[in-house]
């Protein structure tokens, strides 16, 4: 018993920190999401009404919320697979050893991850400029028409996704690279002796060995991509035509711009449940597909 008491003693500081900085705020937000706490509540707390699920119901009938959800899903569907494929591809290339100056490339591809979103977003705004941008110049060389990347509602989200992928894929690449380096070489040797071609080696040796890493990377990436905020905040302020208003950007406007803290808390919980459900589905699928 004494040892268990000592154990509790050791975890108490951590538990306290988690309680004060996580559990209490989350509970407070949950309570807040059941009220119509807004700017009038700052004048007089009697102006707060308990609305139960009212905020959630009202959000579900708010066109902009649905649009934000649609935009975010579009961003996730477009961004996550592309980003993971790019990370895996570049990790394989770096690992294969065909590339010279491996260290240089590793650093160059990882560099965007450690740069500031705001600073590189400004550079990307120049790159994506309709008239003078390098991207459209490239399209022009290929004989393709100019695209109004950040001003056209059809292209704004792909442009943001392009920027996000470039900004983030290096992180997953490093994780993949570490996983690739830990695959024992004798597996490949055995495969080669059995006459497996390079694609077969990839399919039957590399991919299964990477499965746990792939799961981890996809869970992290999806959770991260659902929280799209800084890119539209800096580059488009949610426009044009709300085409880059993500769920988090919508929440930020509700909460901090219009001070509808009740409604903003409800948005946060909806996003949480959405991410939670998707992660559970991923884990369930991973369990079903795992060989054991």
């Amino acid at each position: 018993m004494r040892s268990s008491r000592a154990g509790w003693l050791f975890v108490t500081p951590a538990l306290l920190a988690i309680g004060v900085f996580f559990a209490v705020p989350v509970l407070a937000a949950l309570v807040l999401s059941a009220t119509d706490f807004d700017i009038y509540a700052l004048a007089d707390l009697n102006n707060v009404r308990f609305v139960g699920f009212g905020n959630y119901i009202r959000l579900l009938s708010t066109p902009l919320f649905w649009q934000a959800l649609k935009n975010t899903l579009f961003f996730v569907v477009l961004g996550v697979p592309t980003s993971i494929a790019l990370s895996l591809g570049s990790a394989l290339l770096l690992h294969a050893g065909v590339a010279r100056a491996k260290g240089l490339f590793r650093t160059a591809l990882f560099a965007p991850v450690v740069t500031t979103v705001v600073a590189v977003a400004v550079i990307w705004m120049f790159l994506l400029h309709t008239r003078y941008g390098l991207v459209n110049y490239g399209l022009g060389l290929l004989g393709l028409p100019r695209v109004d990347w950040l001003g056209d509602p059809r292209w704004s989200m792909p442009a943001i996704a392009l920027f996000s992928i470039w900004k983030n894929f290096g992180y997953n690449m490093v994780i993949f690279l570490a996983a690739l380096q830990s695959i024992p070489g004798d597996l490949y040797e055995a495969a080669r002796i059995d006459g497996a071609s390079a694609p077969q080696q990839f399919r039957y040796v590399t991919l299964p060995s990477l499965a746990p890493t792939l799961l981890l990377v996809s869970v992290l990436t999806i959770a991260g991509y659902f929280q799209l905020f800084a890119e539209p905040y800096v580059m488009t302020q949610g426009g044009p035509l709300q085409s880059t208003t993500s769920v988090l950007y919508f929440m930020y406007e509700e909460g901090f711009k219009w001070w509808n803290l009740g409604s903003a808390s409800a948005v946060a919980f909806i996003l949480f449940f959405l991410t939670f459900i998707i992660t559970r589905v991923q884990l369930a699928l991973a369990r079903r597909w795992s060989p054991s």
Partner: protein
Amino acid sequence: MKPRPDQRRAARPRRIARLALAVALARVTSGCDAVSTPTLELWAAGREGEVVSELMPEFEARHPGLRVHVQPLPFLGAHEKLLTAVVGESAPDLAPLGNTWLPEFAMIGALDPLDDAVARSAVIRSADYFEGVWSTNLYEGRQYGVPWYVDTRLLFYRRDLLREAGFEAPPSDWAGWLAMLEALARRFAARGENDKTPIYLRLDEPELLIALAQQTGEPLLRDGLRYGNFRGPGFRRALEFYVNMFRAGLAPQHGMTQIGNLWDEFARGNFIFYVSGPWQLGELERRLPPELADSWATAPLPGATGPGSSLALGSSLVVFSGSKRKAAAWSLIEYLSEPAVQRRFYELTGDLPPRRETWTDERLTSDRNVAAFRAQLERMEPTAPVPEWERIQKEVAIISERAARGALGIEQALAELDARADRILEKRRWILERSSAAAGAQEVTR
């Protein structure tokens, strides 16, 4: 207070901790080395926040024993920071507040009413201020601010290119304006200049549309500011006029990101007109090539019938109700409202002074482009004084952008705007009904 490197290397943990404590204490006390002299806290956003401290030495010389600490705020975060400070009871003594924010701050009780102070003041005379901007400082019959500078919107145009197209003077009403824009569009088309449009308008900025709608004399909210009045004839006319500029190809259907450098495009003659505020005067002088210095001009906003009104925007000095130095804060407001000080402030920022006496100075009257603003300042309409206005205006931006791009018809857009405004104003209606019910109950018991 920073330790030298050689010291730092020698320092043992405890000494480092002691040093850190000393540094921290030094920071805290330097913020108020005012144990003896009382210090006024002034928060100001944007460029004004950076330069207003240059006006402070004279104030401090006139008020020995009083000091002013100016805290500049970034412009984009200013509203949130001030609101959070009020909630956290750490608001400054005074601040310039965007006058569209004033109803919100007054409603939550963050501001000190200034009616008595204004009535007693020898410096601040309400009759000397432009009426439009003065009235933005009233909320439910009480005064909470004194205008510091005025902001409004009017026309900037290329005089030379307009003259080339055969127009000697800028337009003064909607019909004349439209005729001019159409003639310019035909001229561009005839010359094969497809990249050019007669006017450039930012689709995400609803200010022009609001100003046009207010020119019609019909309020945008009805029934004691409880419901939207967008389906009323005034706003309908303005929206039709505004949307037509985009649908008829007189203005490009761009958002804000499209134009990389407004001044370059203006210099190239890619558009003849645009609508903006007083800060553009300085920008144009700085950024246009010198040979174009005489080629541009400003003009008051054309009206529905004859010269029109524009928005009464700007910034007002307010005293926060939590301040412990309200009298001192008021004396600083009076100082900043003196015509001589306002002229110096104008030289520092280019912000337009809110009172007529300041405008008698030659530095302000000699510039023809500033004179157009002077004319506009006599014709300004405040926006609806409800805390929800900014939010409603954002919806106007969203819906009018859809309508301009052709995604919504005029009728649909108007209905949608009324629906959204009514929903935003729901809480206001509930509060007004509750307080009138309470008042009714009191009547009965009497």
